[in-house]
């Protein structure tokens, strides 16, 4: 089971109830496949950076979920067939462990280099 992030752009003309229905359908297919919906974000109606199927806006839904990889292909197929979905994208979610040991070292390096540069200057002045 892997964690995914799926973003769906619905037709802006769709009513709230219809979108809820669509979201429920997706959530159901996830739980049916023994997956788990972690979070559903509603970004609401947003302006698109370019027109998709002559629509200027879209209603964005962002779902974070744990699903078996086999489901992703099936989900993709369903979104393609669904006329009210303008665009969709599923990506692997980033693991939330930023490797704390590595980060201070990387940030520290330039600081050390800077200190070395500054030191001789100060002596001159």
């Amino acid at each position, binding site marked *: 089971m892997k964690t995914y992030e799926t973003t769906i*752009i619905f037709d802006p003309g769709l009513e709230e109830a219809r979108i809820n229905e669509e979201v429920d359908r997706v959530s159901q297919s996830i739980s049916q496949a023994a997956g788990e919906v972690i979070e559903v974000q509603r970004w609401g109606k947003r302006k698109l*950076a370019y027109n998709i199927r002559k629509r200027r806006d879209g209603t*964005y839904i962002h779902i974070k979920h744990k699903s078996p990889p086999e489901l992703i292909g099936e989900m993709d197929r369903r979104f393609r067939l669904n006329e009210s979905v303008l665009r969709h*994208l599923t990506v692997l979610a980033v693991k939330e462990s930023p490797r704390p040991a590595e980060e201070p070292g990387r940030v520290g390096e330039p600081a050390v280099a800077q200190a070395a540069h500054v030191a001789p200057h100060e002596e001159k002045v």
Partner: protein
Amino acid sequence: MAREGESRSFRRKFCKLCFDKVDRIDYKDDRRLTRFITDRGKIVPRRISGTCARHQSQITEAVKRARILALLPFTSEQYR
């Protein structure tokens, strides 16, 4: 006329994302990403922006994803 390189004063470029200690760039964060695309919608190259390799590859991936979701343009309106 002096050559371009001579008249310009040099200032060391640095990775702005390292400076801000950004760990990961998110494709959903389109406000941040707009700083790394040109007015035509192209990804700004490393030699211009001074971004480090690690962050540049993250930017590239994030911009491409954001374009699919129409958060960022593939190209700007007037050149279409």
